[in-house]
């Protein structure tokens, strides 16, 4: 990608009633010469060029040649932040320090130019891009801009080009921490409207004539006709209260799993009363420390995995995919209805759901309708689109109605005989090229296809619950799946707006195999006498989205137990038997209590410990572990299992596992999914005798 340049043109400022005569505005455009699909980023060279341009403009300002300066971006993009690839190329702390100082040196000039400076935020402004806007005296934003944010903490960094210092002063500490911590973690940048309400920008203007109106607004500021009020410094006690509350929350949610959020909070706290020299020096130190962490390197690796529009590893050429003009879904249960709705919304083709009786069909359609109504209510779907979606989904009890389908996805009860029966019945009905897909999470796709005339058309499409929200689909290649069927599965997944990760037809595929292994190790530890509370907290240091018992509760203890049992049968004793869990399922014991506050972890109820104690097999040797011991057991097991998965060819690269765990289980960026963490903690060397990823790919180079 070409580096971003800083282009300068002189623009006439209008007067109150004339097109020209208000002086000259130096208008800077950040442009990398590519279209909006390649957003402009800020490399060290770009930042250095910006500094040179600003120095020259400061000189002009001192000679009275310009009355104002403004920065804007190429269409649809203001600036998407620092060039992350270049950040990960930094190999020493001194280099890292220079990175922060370079940004500050350039951006500070925007406050010290001698004339008012403006950011005309015409498009995406993230990270260092938004900080560039914050560095200016004033900001306009186009009403169409959807993403203004400081995502640094989610990438293992802090907003270290002025953001941590300036944003709290501009919009108050509470809103600033929401942007820097909460929205960063949730990947929820601000819209232009939200940024306007919060005061991140001074005025929102229509995108149709954004530049001309921004220049006119700037001119009115230069003339003094428009005066922007800035907020007074926040009182000490309310500032303190907000920071303390944020810290309590970070302690609970992030803990010690990664340093960036706490460091960002500390920066906000420490810079409050400082001059810019001292404040920016603290930002530089924080940035330098964090750039030199494994967490940051793993985060950028993970970010690359989930944002890269790369073709999934192992996907056949897309042109082999067959056209899909009509889709059948066998089953009208919850999963089937969700899949039918997704297909209707995204593929925009007719969808036929089939179930055994009209009551189930009606229930499936009712579920679809309820979901559509919800989407309309939330403004996610127009009534016209809703009508189209609802009109394109039908339900039938007659399998023959699936005759014209190019793709049939079965989502019936997880029993091999049932699924085989469905496919056997379907085969004479659908055309010879129709692809048959199964949404199984645990059964063998190969076995399901075994008795068909054309087993090569059968493929696995493993959706995650809730289907609408989860970004991952595991695409399963059975032993005899042919290339066109597989290509169709990948093409459909992409068209559905999901990320595909390919998997061989092995039990649990990728996500369930590792997630259930982790749960199994936790209950196994409890069976061996480790207190439930200790086992539940053991993985807190990893910063997973939720503790294991809360996850059990979410998937449903019965489902969890079922998958654990079947994986043990297929994959062996690494997946332990748990009489305690069986008791919990049998007795319907509630697993976790309510969260202490929304978003905080839910912990196991005392009854869970009692159930384990009551059901424990006296023959199980008692070897209680502490938290570190449980964690070690989990990590050894995960490493071992990943080694087996690579040996078995479930996937061909560790990165596929990381992608799947990030998108399918929400495993965090700072672990890089999981394999970068196993590498940097030495588990892969210890257990497998080798690294999983090359040194430096997702870690600080040795």
């Amino acid at each position, binding site marked *: 990608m070409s580096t971003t340049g800083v282009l300068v043109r002189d623009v006439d400022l209008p007067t109150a009633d004339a097109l020209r005569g208000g002086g000259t505005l130096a208008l800077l455009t950040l442009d990398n010469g590519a279209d909006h699909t390649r957003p402009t980023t800020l490399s060290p060279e770009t930042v250095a060029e910006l500094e040179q341009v600003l120095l020259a403009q400061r000189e002009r300002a001192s000679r009275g040649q310009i009355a104002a300066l403004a920065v804007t971006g190429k*269409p649809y993009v203001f600036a998407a932040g620092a060039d992350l690839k270049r950040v990960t190329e930094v190999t020493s702390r001194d280099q890292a320090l220079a990175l922060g100082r370079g940004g500050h040196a350039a951006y500070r000039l925007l406050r010290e130019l001698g004339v008012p400076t403006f950011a005309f935020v015409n498009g995406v402004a993230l990270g260092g891009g938004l900080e560039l806007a914050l560095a200016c005296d004033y900001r306009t934003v186009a009403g169409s801009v959807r993403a203004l944010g400081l995502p640094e903490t989610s990438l293992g960094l802090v907003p270290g080009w002025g953001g941590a210092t300036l944003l709290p002063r501009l919009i108050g500490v509470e809103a600033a921490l929401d942007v820097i911590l909460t929205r960063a973690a949730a990947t929820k940048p601000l819209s232009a409207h939200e940024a306007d309400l919060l005061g991140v920008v001074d005025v929102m203007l229509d995108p149709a*004539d954004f530049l001309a109106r921004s220049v006119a607004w700037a001119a009115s500021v230069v003339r003094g006709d428009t005066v922007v009020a800035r907020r007074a410094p926040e009182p000490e006690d309310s500032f303190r209260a907000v920071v303390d509350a944020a810290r309590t929350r970070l302690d609970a949610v992030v803990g010690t799993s990664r340093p960036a959020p706490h460091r960002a909070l500390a920066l906000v706290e420490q810079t409050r009363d400082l001059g810019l020299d001292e404040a920016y020096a603290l930002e530089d130190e924080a940035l330098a420390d964090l750039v030199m962490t494994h967490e940051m390197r793993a985060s950028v690796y993970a970010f690359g995995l989930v944002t890269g529009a790369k073709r999934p590893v192992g996907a056949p050429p897309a042109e082999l995919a067959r056209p899909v003009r009509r889709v059948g879904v066998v089953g009208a249960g919850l999963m089937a209805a969700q899949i039918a709705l997704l297909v209707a919304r995204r593929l925009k083709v007719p969808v036929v759901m089939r179930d055994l009786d009209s009551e189930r069909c009606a229930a499936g359609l009712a579920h679809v309708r309820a979901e559509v109504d919800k989407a309309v209510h939330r403004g996610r779907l127009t009534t016209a689109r809703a009508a189209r979606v609802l009109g394109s989904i039908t339900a039938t009890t007659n399998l023959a109605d699936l005759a014209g389908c190019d793709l049939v996805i079965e989502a019936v009860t997880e029993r091999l005989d049932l699924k085989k029966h469905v496919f056997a019945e379907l085969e004479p009905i659908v055309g010879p090229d129709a692809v048959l897909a199964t949404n199984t999470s645990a059964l063998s796709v190969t076995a399901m296809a075994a008795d068909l005339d054309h087993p090569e058309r059968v493929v696995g499409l493993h959706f995650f619950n809730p289907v609408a929200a989860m970004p991952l689909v595991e695409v399963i290649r059975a032993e005899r799946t042919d290339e066109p069927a597989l290509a169709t599965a990948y093409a459909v997944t992409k068209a559905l707006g999901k990320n595909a990760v390919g998997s061989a037809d092995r039990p649990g595929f990728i996500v369930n195999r590792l997630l259930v292994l982790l749960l199994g190790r936790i209950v196994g530890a409890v069976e061996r006498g480790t207190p439930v509370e200790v086992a539940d907290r053991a993985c807190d240091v990893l910063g997973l989205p939720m503790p294991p018992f809360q996850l059990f509760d979410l998937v449903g203890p019965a489902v969890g137990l079922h998958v654990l049992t079947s994986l043990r049968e297929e994959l062996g004793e690494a997946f332990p038997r748990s009489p305690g869990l069986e008791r919990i399922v049998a007795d319907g014991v509630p697993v976790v209590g309510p969260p202490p506050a929304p978003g905080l972890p839910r912990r196991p109820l005392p009854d869970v410990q009692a159930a384990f104690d009551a059901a424990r097999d006296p023959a199980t040797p008692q070897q209680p572990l502490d938290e570190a011991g449980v964690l070690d057991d989990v990590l050894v097991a995960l490493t071992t299992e990943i080694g087996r998965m690579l040996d078995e060819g479930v996937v061909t690269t560790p990165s596929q596992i990381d992608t799947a765990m990030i998108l399918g289980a929400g495993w965090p960026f700072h672990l890089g999914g999981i394999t970068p963490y196993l590498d940097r903690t030495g588990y892969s060397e210890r257990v497998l005798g080798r690294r999983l990823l090359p040194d430096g790919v997702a870690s600080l180079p040795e």
Partner: protein
Amino acid sequence: MTSSPPMRRGLLGRRVVLVDGVRTPFGRARDDGLYAGTRADDLAVACVRELLHRNPNLPPERVGEVAIAATTQQGDQGLTLGRTVAMLAGLPQEVPGYAVDRMCAGALTATTQVAAQIAVGAVDVAIAGGVEHMGRHPLGGGADPNPRFVAEGLVDSDALVMGATAENLHDGDARLTRERADRYGVASQERYAAALAAGRIDRDLVAVGVRDQGAWTLATADEPPRPGTTLEGVRDLPTPFRPGGRVTAATSSPLTDGATACLLAAQDVAAELGLAARARLVSFAYAGVDPAVMGLGPVPATRRALELAGLGIDDIGAIEVNEAFAVQVLAFLDAFGLDDADPRVNPDGGAIAVGHPLAASGVRLAIQLARRFEDDPSIRYGLTTMCVGLGQGATVVWENPHHPAYDGERTSGEHLASAGATPTTPEVQL
């Protein structure tokens, strides 16, 4: 002359006023021109946005129609411009729109068409305008003329080459010399330069954000004018349309990119909304002539429009005639017995200096006339006129609302002229 309809003073129906009008700065239609990197529809959008900004009293949903003209309606000038421009400008989706084509008289036709819609009461307020990005859409680009035109001698082969039709005008009348044309062309540049210096040009312009080799900048000034043009400097210019001809770059309007838009309303609605009345549309007319001398079009069109208005040329205090070619203006002046330097005609220069983005020019004439009305309340009536390729002329007669005799109370019903009101249209031999 053929037989005339009964005389009446202007249009029937509701009185229609020009509320406001704006244009983009005009750019040279070249690869390195002002708008080389700007879409045509975006130019029209900039004008509509500016009308809305300048008239905050106008609730956007009160706009009942948006008519935008372009000669070559394809690419970024395709897809029903009036509708797409309305949507892109942020007008409510309830506001309808359509595209117009009458070649160079596109915007003028859009204006009279929506005026007629207003007059009959179909809409209250409307936007009319035009755009031509000649850098992207050269005149006749992509056109496929029917071979019968030539095979059956329906038109002279010159008819599609506008410069050649201008040469034909020179041929037809010994009074139309190159020297007169050169002198007129130079005067146009001088008049424009004087108007610019006096601040009479900028008031109609909207600043447009444009990209120049990746860099954003703002277009705030016309690019085509060539200040400092002298008679000596143009005397020996080549004649590209005919060896040994008379029409040169200095006596032709340059190829131009630009857009215009104006706001029209029923007079009573304008008053109700607190909108200004800058000119009242009295009458309009279109007329056909031999396509080989299309430059004569304004003559019969003007005669007809004056006749409909019940006025004579002597009643007209201000004329804005489009300067497609100097010779075509001179032919018009001769037809009506006006002097080449008549101060009523194009005192701020014309298309030879500022440029002629074909379908956009009609509204430029109207807004320039409206400025003159504002600056000189002694002018009672004015007219805008232009020639049109393939042998047409277009004229609109306007009344100055600032004139002391203007009846601002009357809202409708031009009556048939009383017996005494005899038209004073001069007899002109075409």
